[in-house]
């Protein structure tokens, strides 16, 4: 389900998030505004511990926020019930994390089928689509293997296949190449670029300046605030 290019699909305003553990309060987001249009490839950069992951979690709805609004496709996701928000994620989003988070007891193919199963896609179709997806990420011959039998790069490709197989409108990627060597990382980024060119929006957190430069936009996060939002640049981050 892809939107025409350039249409706004996410609009976040004045988002704040403070972590509290006991007496300790960590303000991780202190009033963040961000828009994502379809076809965007936003790279999020910033020093460690400044709120990048928090931003991704809060915008995607896998974490709660303290104040502000996040509209996706016109719906305020933090006003929804958890069930609806979850459903929303299943239909519209894909996630890729630094650690691949594959289900260790399922084969590569079965891992990719999981999000389709959640959407209620028939078994036969799911298998077909998973196979196609694995072929696209270059793992057609490894689909029967369990995650433990794959290299880190291969596991991440399975994770990407899993994130892409439902053709989500937004793909959230939190340091997807953080665990990989630069060559393998390059292949992963190429994959993301490819889907982005096909019209899916990508928001990717990265520490890699080279990767930071490839997006259509770059966002710099510092101390829980967005300090830069514009054309890709790596000036003044670190």
């Amino acid at each position: 389900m892809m939107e025409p290019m350039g249409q706004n699909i996410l609009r976040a305003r004045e988002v704040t998030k403070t972590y509290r553990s006991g007496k300790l309060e960590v303000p991780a987001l202190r009033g963040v505004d961000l828009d994502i249009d379809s076809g965007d490839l936003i790279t999020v950069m910033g020093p460690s511990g400044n709120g990048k992951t928090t931003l991704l979690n809060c915008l995607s709805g896998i974490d709660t926020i303290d104040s502000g609004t996040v509209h996706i496709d016109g719906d305020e996701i933090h006003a929804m019930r958890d069930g609806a928000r979850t459903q929303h994620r299943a239909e519209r989003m894909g996630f890729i994390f630094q650690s691949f988070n594959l289900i260790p007891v399922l084969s590569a193919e079965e891992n990719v089928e999981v999000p389709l199963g959640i959407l209620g896609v028939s078994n036969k179709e799911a298998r077909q689509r998973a196979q196609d997806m694995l072929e696209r990420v270059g793992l057609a011959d490894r689909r029967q293997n369990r995650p433990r039998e794959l290299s880190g790069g291969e596991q991440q490709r399975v994770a990407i296949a899993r994130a892409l197989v439902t053709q989500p409108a937004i793909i959230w990627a939190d340091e997807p190449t953080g665990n990989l060597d630069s060559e393998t990382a390059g292949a992963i980024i190429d994959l993301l670029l490819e889907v982005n060119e096909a019209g899916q929006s990508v928001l990717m957190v990265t520490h890699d300046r080279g990767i930071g430069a490839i997006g259509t936009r770059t966002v710099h996060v510092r101390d829980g605030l967005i300090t830069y939002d514009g054309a890709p640049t790596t000036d003044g981050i670190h």
Partner: protein
Amino acid sequence: MVTVLAAIAVLLTLPALVDLIRRPDLRRVGLRNIVRRPGEAALVVLGSALGTAIIAAAFIVGDTFDRSIRDIARTELGPVDQVVRVTNVDDLDDALVAIEGPGTIAGVDGVLAITSIGAALSNADATNAEPSLRISAVDMDAARSFGADPSITALADVPAPGLDEIVINTDTRAELDVEIGDLVAVYAYGERIDLELIALMPSEGLGGFSDAYIDPALLDSVAAEPPLGAEPPSALVLVSNDGGVFDSTEDPRNVRRIETATGDRLRAAGIDHDQSPQKLDILRDAEEEGDELTQIFSVVGGFSVVAGILLLVNLFVMLAEERKPTMGVLRAIGWRQGTLVRSFGLEGAIYAIIAAAVGALGGIGVGWAVVKLTQDIFATSGNDFSLILAVEPISLLQAALTGLVISLLAIWVTSWRISRLNIIRAIRDLPEPVTARGQLLLSVGGLVLAVVGVALLIGPGLGGKSVIPALAGPALMILGAGLLLKRWVRNDLLAVAAGSAVVLWGAFWAQILPKDVTTDVELPTFLVLGIILVAGGTAIATVIGPWMRRLLDLGSRPATAARLGLAYPVARTFRTALSLAMFSLIIFSLTFISVMSSTLGGQDDDIVTEISAGRDMMVDANSANPIATGDLTDLPGVASASPIIRAVPRWSADFDAESIEDPDRWRLSGIDPGFGNTGAPQLELRADRFATDAEAFEAVATDPTLVVVPSWFLAAGSDGVEVNLQDRVTMYTASGFTQEMTVIGVVQNDFTFAGPWVSADLVREQMPGGFRITRHYVTATADTSADDLAEAIDAAFVTNGASAETFRHRVGRFLSQELGFFRLLRGYLALGLVIGIAGLGVTLVRAVRERRREIGMLRSMGFPTGGVRSMFLTEAAFIGFLGIVSGAALGLLTARQLISGSDALDEPLPFVFPTSALVLVVLLPLIGAVVAAIVPAIRAARLRPSEALRLAD
């Protein structure tokens, strides 16, 4: 036993204790792990504590029975160690003189002559009566000073009753509700005598040996001419050995020596007599009965204990897996493998010690409950034997040590196993690959197991005719062969093949092994059998999982949850197998007991028909005051009454070598021609020449050389001895007459304690002074209910000590006692169920933590909370279901084999399918399994995705 256990326990705890003191780093890691998750630590402790509690309770039940039966020595014997029955009352004084002799027998501190009759007592207006009491006459002065310690005779303050006076014990007073000064009526030999109650004595010592004392002259006059068929007074000489109540028989050889010396003196004086070392017998019985109950409860509890071990191992394996990366890091920074083992061992030892202590204490509670329930069972079946809870510190210690040793063994072995890891792979959480060396080890292990199996089978099994090694040997052989073949054969096929082979062996061993090996089947055999069957069943069940998972490939949303729920247990074969086996074992034992009890319970109609001989009830009476048959038939409602003559000659049989050397006393039933006209007890075996059971009984009534015996007559029924048609038995009377007889029929259930059935004429002729007509088989008229008639007979013949009981009531009473016992065992087993369910709960709580990251990911991908919940519920239901189904199936199979297929039971019973019990046995645990999963499932569903992902990284 205790010292050996203690030594092992010390050996196993010592390293942990040393580390606790000397290695602060290990102590910190170990303690921190416990404190960090107190809830789970508590559950681990609970799991192994229950095992210990079960062992402790088994000991307590045994101790309680031992103590309660031993107490009979105090309440009914006191100083009395040996009872000598002098055949002829007139010889009593001579016997006393003979035993006292010129010098006392060494080790004897008292000899007392006493005369007793059986009689009924009532209060003055006969509203309260006790039908069957022992009334004695004794020289009160001699009695008071009988034995070394007058306080244990209980007669110290009792005056000698005069000619119209009586002394009774406190138990009897309570029944009659009389006070000192009241009149008490004594019924003996058809007379009523009213006597004044002048004193009470405690119901212990001689005050328990006899319920009442009267003047010797009075007893002589009452018993001057006992009517035909009534029992004359018994003349007894009581012998007290040195010592008090319990220490006088400490050395059985001494008791035997005194017995022999007494006998020698009597024989020298030419006095006909009978001796019995009563106290030794009671104390022996107590010990045997106590040990037997300890064994029953230990074995039944053994299922739960084994389940507890499986749980412990499972938890430790999970613990290790969870901590694998941490352990890898510790290894990397310089911990040796041994250090890891010790850090685990330390943590485990702390769990084990706490569990042993808690378990032993908890065992008191469980033991108390079991004793309480047992008492209730006895009470409802009209048995007033009272249990005295006995908690022996040594038993508690033994239980605690047993629990401790079992847990520590499990802990050290698992710790050693899990600490063998490759550092890099552990840090990166990669599986340990199968190395060539591992392969080789596995094959060697398989070979060793197979060899041990063969050795067990051939050596102690077939060679030593011992059933447990014969049973376990082949199972080990199959297991060993399975391990050997693992290299070459597909693992799932191998599991199914080896599992099926084991199950088949477990089902048909009784038919395959030679008979002389299977005859000594005892309770522990079933524990071993259960473990073997469950191991086989589990091997098969672990393979069923993947197939089930394939069936579920439907692609709908609930199916996704179900698939994921199945994926984990299916992939983690070892853990799943442990959980499955744990459940399966418990369900196996529950099912087995249920079948046994329903089969037994379904028996009552058959047994009533079997024993009733076409009548409604049996009426027993006091031997000193039997009911005249005519009086009975005169009672309204009585259609017919057949007298049965009772006597107690000695017997030998050609199938019982021991009885030929030393014939046994056994009470007989004598019948007159015509007894069979109304019907006869059902015969299990009957000589071919008789067309009906009644014909066989008629033959017995008319021909003194024929006899019908119960299936457990003399030694039959033990050690594989069976009584058969055409066997020869011999009856010996006190006067020296012997009669050889041929067995023409065998009675299955002798619920009436009829003993051998012979011709009444024979008894009348050969034992003129020795028989009594104390029993009648009675039929009620068509318009009278049997129960009402029984009550009417009791009331009408109270002074004869009448006790009328319908056959149906009697069978119900006997069975209810056994069924109650089975219920009790089932309750005891249900404790294991608690282990199983709690175990599953802990396993799942741990699983939730272990899979946090995956749960977070699933939730991110839009997997709903309900899906996460049902994922875990499915997992629990799956393990529960497989475990229950395999356990129940194996339990049914075994019980069926035992009941109708093998010779292990004396008698083949019709197999009764325990429908309602089985529904419970299957449903309750299944619900329990799902309930146990609810908390972890809800916890998993509540995890916030971002949180779950972050924590895991």
